[in-house]
């Protein structure tokens, strides 16, 4: 009999999306496209509560209408399940969902045209990490490319956003542009026109999606031959992140330009008052670290003043002087330049106030909210200042006394118990924040300043000690420990506690061969969860091993 392997088979299409993204609308468009053009269409999905924001698979089969058989009352028997290895087209709204299509065997290299958005919608696990829990997009992209016969990837999310439409319209355009279905563009567009809502916006997104599929952005292709032979280790062969959005490419080019400028004309990377510091960067520091140092100079000066930038350079200079790889990447110097600046510019009340009232911030918010250039917007801050933070920013004497005062804590507690909502765009709100930002000159007399400066110096002492003891790799990890100092209030306190613990352990184990690896593991553990379970477990093994 003439069957499946003689082409007597439906066109099979699976759509992987998250509930609420319009995957159902996309399936409906495909159904009406088919039905309007001589096909019998069947679609199914699993709906209900399982759909709320979770992964959802929609499945469509299209079978060419056979007039002769239809007249005799025969109907093709269509399936309600996508069969692994037998899906012609997979449409994924997001890169991990494309990866899921490959994982579930819907998307296969012998058959499937994969149309996917290269954008990411992060999972809860990725979002929740106190550090960086993101899955490497390169892995997902490699899976998508290796797992499909034809790969059409573009940031359909970004395309649809530009037209105020939904991603499903851009993906439908992508499907049309992929030339994977026996229909013309106008037939696709008619399916969109038949739906009642937001037709114009949908068609605009459709057009962008269509063009993107016709000329997908150049992505380095993965060597399929090599993959076939070494299926288990594909991930390590990918190299640099192959997917780059336009924004990413632009920022990469800017970074290159900046690096060149840091060597040729460093003064141009800082403001006019920091010429001397820029000169010092050029004369005293390894070339590789200069761009980062100039960032740090600019940041510390804005944070406090030019003297503070000098102090910053003094601190990094101590490390640079002992950096064994000065002329070979200067990793230790670069990471010091980064982490010392970040710590020196710790987030205190005055600095947060400054960040809130910068003109560029309000402009950014206006753009983000899609407000017109003259349109009235109001920006309200949700602040929750705590007694501790206030004491910290006061001069040592008075701050210290107040910190011990129970009645002060009570008064502040009562005033801020419910938090404060401050309208930055109002006269009162702006003036208040402005005044707080203007308290900057008082900062060096504050309790916190004294504490932070002391801790920075003893941290750097330990870094130098590690290099002196012949363990520069450990020194880099000690520098990296700064990453665990995060947040405000309780989060800040927790970060500080973890930092102290890491430094203590680093000091103790610096003679051990596995010191670098151990500390690196501990940093990851400190950033793994909120309640410290991972760090506790990791700490327990440190001494067990030793």
């Amino acid at each position, binding site marked *: 009999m003439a069957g499946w392997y003689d082409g007597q088979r439906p066109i099979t299409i699976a759509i992987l999306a*998250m509930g609420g993204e319009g995957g159902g609308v996309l399936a409906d468009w495909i*159904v009406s496209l088919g039905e309007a053009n001589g096909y019998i269409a069947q679609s199914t999905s699993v709906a209900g509560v399982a759909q709320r924001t979770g992964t959802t698979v929609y499945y469509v089969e299209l079978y060419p209408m056979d007039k002769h058989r239809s007249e005799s009352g025969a*109907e093709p028997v269509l399936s309600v399940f996508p069969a692994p290895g037998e899906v012609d087209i997979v449409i994924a709204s997001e890169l991990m969902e494309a990866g899921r299509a490959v*994982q579930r065997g819907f998307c296969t290299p012998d058959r499937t045209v994969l149309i996917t958005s290269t954008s990411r919608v992060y999972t809860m696990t990725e*979002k929740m990490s106190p550090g960086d829990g993101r899955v490497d997009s390169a892995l997902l992209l490699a899976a998508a490319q290796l*797992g499909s016969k034809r790969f059409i990837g573009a940031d359909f999310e970004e395309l649809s956003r530009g037209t105020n439409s939904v991603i499903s319209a851009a993906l439908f355009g992508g499907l049309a542009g992929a030339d994977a279905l026996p229909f013309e563009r106008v037939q696709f567009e008619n399916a969109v026109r038949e739906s009642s809502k937001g037709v114009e916006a949908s068609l605009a997104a459709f057009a962008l999606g269509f063009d993107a599929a016709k000329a997908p952005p150049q992505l380095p292709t993965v060597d399929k031959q090599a993959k076939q032979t070494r299926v288990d280790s594909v991930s390590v062969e990918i190299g640099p992140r192959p997917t780059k959005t336009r924004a990413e490419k632009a920022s990469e080019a800017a970074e290159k330009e900046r690096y060149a400028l840091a060597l040729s004309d460093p003064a141009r990377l800082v403001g006019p008052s920091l010429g001397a510091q820029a000169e010092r960067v050029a004369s005293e520091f390894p070339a590789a670290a200069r761009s980062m140092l100039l960032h740090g100079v600019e940041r510390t000066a804005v944070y406090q003043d030019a003297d503070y930038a000098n102090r910053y350079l003094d601190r990094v200079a101590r490390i640079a002087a002992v950096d064994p790889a000065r002329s070979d990447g200067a990793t230790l110097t670069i990471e010091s330049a980064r982490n010392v600046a970040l710590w020196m510019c710790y987030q205190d009340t005055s600095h947060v106030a400054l960040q809130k009232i910068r003109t560029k911030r309000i402009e950014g918010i206006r753009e983000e909210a899609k407000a017109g250039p003259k349109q009235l917007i109001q920006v309200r801050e949700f602040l*929750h200042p705590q007694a501790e933070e206030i004491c910290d920013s006061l001069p040592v004497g008075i701050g210290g006394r107040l910190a011990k005062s129970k009645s002060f804590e009570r008064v502040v507690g009562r005033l801020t118990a419910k938090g404060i909502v401050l309208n930055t765009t109002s006269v009162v709100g702006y003036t208040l924040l402005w005044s707080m930002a203007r308290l900057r000159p008082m900062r060096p007399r504050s309790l916190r300043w004294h504490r932070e400066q002391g801790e920075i110096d003893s941290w750097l002492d330990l870094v130098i000690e590690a290099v002196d003891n012949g363990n520069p790799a450990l020194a880099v990890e000690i520098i990296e420990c700064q990453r665990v100092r995060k947040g405000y209030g309780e989060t800040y306190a927790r970060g500080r506690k973890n930092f102290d613990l890491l430094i203590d352990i680093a000091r103790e184990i610096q003679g051990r061969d596995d010191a670098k690896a151990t500390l690196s593991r501990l940093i990851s553990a400190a950033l793994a969860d909120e309640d410290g379970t991972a760090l506790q477990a990791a700490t327990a093994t440190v001494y067990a091993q030793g």
Partner: protein
Amino acid sequence: MAERSFAAEVLKLKLGDGAVVSGEGILAVTKALLQSGVAYIGGYQGAPISHLMDVLGDAHDILEDLDIYFENSASEATAAAMLAASVHYPIRGAVTFKSTVGLNVASDALADLSSGGVKGGALIILGEDYGEGSSIMQERSHAFAMKSQMWLMDPRPNMTAIVDAVEVGFELSEASNTPVMLELRLRSCHLHGSFVARDNVRPSMTVTEAIDNPVRDLSRVVLPPASFLHEQEKLTQRWPAAVDFIRDRGLNEVLGEGTADIGIIVQGGLYNTMNRAMELLGHSDPYGDTDIPVYVMNVAYPVIDSEIIDFCKTKRAVLMVEEGQPDYIEQNVNTILRRSNVTCQIHGKDLLAEMGEYTTSVVTHGLSAFLDTYLPDSTTHKPNLLLPDDHPDSPFAARDSTSAVEPRPPGFCIGCPERPIFSALKLAERETGEHHVSADIGCHLFSINAPFDIGATTMGYGLGSAGAAALNSRNADRRTIAIMGDGGFWHNGLTSGVGNAVFNDTDQLLVVVDNDYSAATGGQDLLSSGNNNPIRSTKHSIEKAVRGVGVKWAKTVPNTYKVAELRDTFIEALTTKEVGPKVVIAQSECQLNRQRRVKPEFQQALKAGDRVVRERFGVDADTCTGDHACVRISGCPSLTIKPNPDPMRTDPVATVTDSCVGCGVCGANAHAAALCPSFYRTDVVYNPGFTDRVRTRARSWLISRLSKRIENRAAAFERQI
């Protein structure tokens, strides 16, 4: 009002003879009911048959025109009990609910109904929630058919077959005086396809006519001695009548008889999957022209002995394709053949998966194994899905580090009002310590997953409070927390939970999530819904109801987005000396429904030139230190992360996407949990008024003057671009 409107689709219900109707499986069922002369319909919503209730609700005009009574039942038990109207009167009735959970709830009424039997056709339409996408325990409805002796129809997933099954189901019910269940699998309910319509039929006797002409027949009442007679009737009269009807009408099908000396028996609902498996193995074509005989059981219960014997006696071996466990049909078939000395070898769960959904992949594996044994040279093609996973051509060959793909379970929607309830509970527990939390059924059950991780058990709809009943001790230092939705509350929770806790003096905090709708099932109205429903009575207060059954400590928090207030209420309820149950009713409208209501209102006001404000939240990337504590206490899809725009920092920062509906929970959390100063709310004002304009002018003047000093200072240090 339900989440999805079928106002356009219901017009198709009016189509008559010969018209082609295309739409969802659910629409086909509704149309078939109208074509069958049904007199009354009831049911309880729940995936996958929620849309059936929604379609009926939107079609109430059409139903009224045909004199059909329609009710949104309080529970599946209520729906099943409705069918009592068909005991004495020759009127057709249909009810629908999710199964097996609905059958569990309804089984008391259904057992009584089956005992006395029916005169008018009684049809129970089951949305079988089994396999991928299911939200309930994995069980089979088949057991209920066997235990109460109701017939179970399992039509092919094809629109015409479904429509026919509804119509013939009523006839079968009447011919055998037995209620008939019609099972629709999850994907069949959401199937899009088409069928040819027939004219709608008015009921031969309406509900009104029945009421006005009361009938009573003592022999139908379930009480001795009639109940003993019912059991005899079931086996001696109703069963044979059903068998005759099913045989005479050819409800089960035999395809391709004579093509081979082996065969396949398949449940109707699995037929399409079965045919696809046969296509993949080269034994059938898209129109089902098979070269292996297939017996399609469109009626899964009762099994027709004579048909089984006829099919099997000419075959060496037969494969039984039966989804789920236990293997009731396979056991039944084996018994029939054994008793009649037919030697045909029956295979089933030995070759097919013992449990779980029968997907194309599962059935193809089993069928391939069967054919390899009995017709080894007949299979010319084998699909790649049969290859071992480590074969490079297998669809499952490792093409990536698949560990990178993380599961993405369902969760609370953007701006969901239930999210802040669990944020507040998490914050309250920081002060009072952890508690045992008994969860319920509904969207709120998403709390058991990250980031909330709240909830230890779920015992069924409305049983959140009852699920904690035993954990009640005067000597314990902390009290148990129970969660219940408004849906579960009205379904049974008011009596099974609240009443029970009052009567037994249970020291429990019960949180009733009142979001105005039965939200998880698609936003249907309830007694406590806040809106005016033209055909139902709403606005009945939950607090009044709990006070009515004797609760002394009850508080309604009318805005769940006020996290701090809710947290404090929880702490109070967890620490008060008051005895008996403490009930907190956390009230805010389901955001899905709210957006559906508010969006058009906003557009209208905007067009009319009224002053309107659009709100959204944001996070300052400069101020955010990338700890993501905000995510861990919220989990909103619109609160996510992005690469750090700061060239010096590496960890991603929090960000709010354009999908934000400005519910306010980010700000409330920032306050209640003392998070960080990074959150802000942007109010975009449209059609500003006079005051707005004057104020703006004053503000711009001041801000531009003050900011000049700040910006000039920064300009001295910052790179000029």
